[in-house]
């Protein structure tokens, strides 16, 4: 089945990477030690570990419409998050020694968790709006203006809610930028949206 998935996934129209949740689905030949040690398979394993460690998954699940809304609103943050993870994991994959690679991956996971928690702490400290699920996305166009040092231009035509969010952060641009420009912003927003702090560690 991995043959079919790999071949179909490589077709131009699809461009999808194969993924499975069942090791048994890998036959004896594809699960040989030679294949397991291929960089692409190491990357897949590491990626799955990181995804499971960093992204939240409430036991009650996420309603499909809610998931779509979240991903749509934070589309740019998701892409930045994924690029960051993929690039770092590719670097780790280059470490030939397995024990060292495992250690590196563990350290990277810890680092990601810490960064996510730092952003969450900043959000709490800056009273990131509870309605941030929608509001943050509305506020996102502000970032360009803030980064370029011309926030006034970015404020033109904003709805009152977005303006309120902007002003809530005004005078603290550095922290605001830290939150919104961090590659971990997507993971932190997901954590905030889908898991409470008390359940975060049990995920």
């Amino acid at each position, binding site marked *: *089945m*991995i*043959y*079919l*998935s790999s*071949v*179909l*996934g*490589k*077709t*131009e*129209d*699809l*461009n*999808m*990477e*194969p*993924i*499975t*949740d*069942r090791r*048994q*689905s*890998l*036959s*004896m*030949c*594809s699960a040989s030690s030679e294949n397991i040690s291929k960089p692409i398979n190491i990357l897949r394993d590491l990626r799955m570990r990181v*995804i*499971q460690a960093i*992204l*939240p*998954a*409430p*036991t009650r*699940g*996420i309603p*499909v*419409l809610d*998931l*779509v809304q*979240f*991903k749509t609103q934070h589309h740019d943050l*998701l*892409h930045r998050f*994924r*690029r960051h993870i*993929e690039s770092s994991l590719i670097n780790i994959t280059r470490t030939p020694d397995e024990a060292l690679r495992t250690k590196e991956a563990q350290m990277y996971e810890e680092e990601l968790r810490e960064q996510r928690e730092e952003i969450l702490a900043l959000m709490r400290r800056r009273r990131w709006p509870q309605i941030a699920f929608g509001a943050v996305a509305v506020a996102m166009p502000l970032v360009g203006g803030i980064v370029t040092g011309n926030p006034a231009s970015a404020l033109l035509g904003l709805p009152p809610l977005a303006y309120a969010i902007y002003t809530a952060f005004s005078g603290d641009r550095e922290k605001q930028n830290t939150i919104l420009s961090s590659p971990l912003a997507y993971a932190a927003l*997901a954590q905030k949206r889908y898991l409470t702090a008390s359940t975060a560690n049990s*995920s």
Partner: protein
Amino acid sequence: MADRVLYFPYIRVPENRRFTRVLLYWDQVGSIVPSEYVNDPGGLGRYMAALVKEGQVKPVTPRTYIHRVPNFAESFLKMIDDNPVIKGRRGIALQKQETFTLHIEKFSPLVYELRDMGLARETDSPGGKWKVSRLTYT
């Protein structure tokens, strides 16, 4: 870098926490489904049908893409033929039930070649289900 992944081996994607995280990470997840489900997504179950409806899961029907792969069958059959372990299980795998049940569309037209090699057989159940040697499920 791909923004999407293609889930296997089942038609329905799992409804669990692990897969929720996968959905959160990737733009879209493909799933290999027989074409009959494209017009009847309800047959995929409520969860998957909702994911398909909202574009989070893309049903991928093999027959739409396989013909675009020039040596799809030849490469697979050569890989099977070159593997001494699989060679040694011809006929035996079916007898000993070392098999996986799958829909014919997922492996068509290869199932007939595998049948001739003693690595697959059609089941009695309706709907194009075949038993295929687990070892060939690569």
